[in-house]
């Protein structure tokens, strides 16, 4: 708990990168209409996909900071020797990352939906799918950060490792919003999305902790 508060405080103080993900999301949503043209019908057709891909890339942006700073100043070694098990520490790191990136992204997504002419009935499903899906993105990102923590060229490698792991979440998340747009019942996709998130939250902390132990050896 103290670790969670410390991480949140570090992220929200100056230089912590809080809001960076939101700004990046805004830029993605601004650039897409320049790329595909401003017609409303076309934009609203691709909006679910763009919003999900944008959210995913924004999550990716801050991943390499999760462990890098703690590794540099040595506090990661202290955390490793603390009584808190490594798995718990990793899960708390993921929770902190989600609270400063995933949750704000999900809550502000309707605004970006407006920019992209997302049709009306899809808004609740957009927020719901992001809230259900982004915890998995944060947890997998923490796994990627744990694998690459000691590396000099870690940043690019991190994206290469983590992005293929995001595929199932992206498929079901974007599918839920797309069904919301079409007026179909998005519950099936949402249930699958929630299943993947729960699965990731249950298993990936162990893998991330194992990778972190190797890197701190």
């Amino acid at each position, binding site marked *: 708990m103290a670790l969670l508060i410390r991480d949140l405080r570090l992220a929200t103080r100056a230089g912590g990168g809080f809001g960076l993900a939101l700004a990046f999301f805004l830029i993605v949503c601004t650039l897409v209409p320049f790329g595909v043209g401003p017609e409303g019908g076309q934009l609203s057709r691709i909006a679910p996909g763009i919003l999900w891909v944008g959210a995913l890339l924004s999550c990716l942006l801050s991943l390499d900071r999760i462990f890098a700073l703690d590794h540099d100043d040595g506090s990661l070694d202290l955390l490793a020797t603390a009584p808190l098990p490594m798995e718990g520490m990793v899960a708390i790191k993921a929770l902190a990352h989600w609270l400063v990136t995933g949750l704000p992204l999900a809550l502000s997504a309707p605004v970006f939906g407006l920019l992209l002419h997302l049709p009306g009935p899809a808004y609740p499903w957009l927020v719901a799918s992001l809230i259900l899906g982004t915890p998995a993105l944060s947890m997998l990102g923490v*796994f990627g950060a744990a*694998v*690459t923590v*000691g*590396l000099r*060229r*870690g940043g690019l*490698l991190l994206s*290469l*490792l983590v*992005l*293929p*792991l995001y*595929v*199932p979440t992206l*498929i*079901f998340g974007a*599918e839920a919003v797309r069904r919301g747009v079409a007026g179909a019942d998005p519950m099936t*996709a949402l249930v*699958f999305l929630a299943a*993947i998130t729960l699965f990731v939250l249950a*298993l*990936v902390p162990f*893998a991330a902790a*194992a*990778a972190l132990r*190797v*890197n701190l*050896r």
Partner: protein
Amino acid sequence: MSIWEYANPVKFMRTSGAALPWVVAGAAICTIAGLIWGFLTPQDYKQGATVKIIFLHVPAALMAINIWLMMLVTSLIWLIRRHHVSALAAKAAAPVGAVMTLIALITGAVWGQPMWGTWWEWDPRLTSFLILFLFYLGYMALWEAVENPDSAADLTGVLCLVGSVFALLSRYAVNFWNQGLHQGASLSLAPGERMSAVYRYPLYLTMAGFFLLFLALLLIRTRTEIRRRRLAALLARENRT
């Protein structure tokens, strides 16, 4: 006599060195004979001459998946029993698997162009193969990036486990996302579904050939890795004295 004896690099080097010429010869005979036999088969009444791509496509796709499975098993052996040969075999297999995936994708595109009228289609099977290829790339990049060989083996082992789960998950998730254009299983035991014996037997032969080819490449590459490890140890000893 147990398989764990080959965890000893000396024993592995001796046995693999003796077996290698036979495996190479078998791979050459099966692959070349299978491909020539396959080339001489009659044309399909619907697909014409393009049906012959199957003799490259199906064995490559088969190996692409099974090499990842082999890497999963060897990674598990490394993580559980700490046998270095096992980790080096997983490292040696990855580029071969990536190339097999690429062959399957390219031959599939060459076949799909005249048959489906498109080089690429976001079909579940095609997409999951592309994802598999990305997993291979990430795995190899991680081996390159980590300097300490034992840490590299550990990290890639963990990545292989997580990647296997997610490759499987993606495989079924893409079914949900798009309908398939790719035909079902090429080899089926049900008599009504399987293809004619004219094509089946050369296919079996090329499959055996590709398997032996992989085995030969795997042995050569693992032997190279062991020698590289020995060289590094020798150099380290030189520098110390």
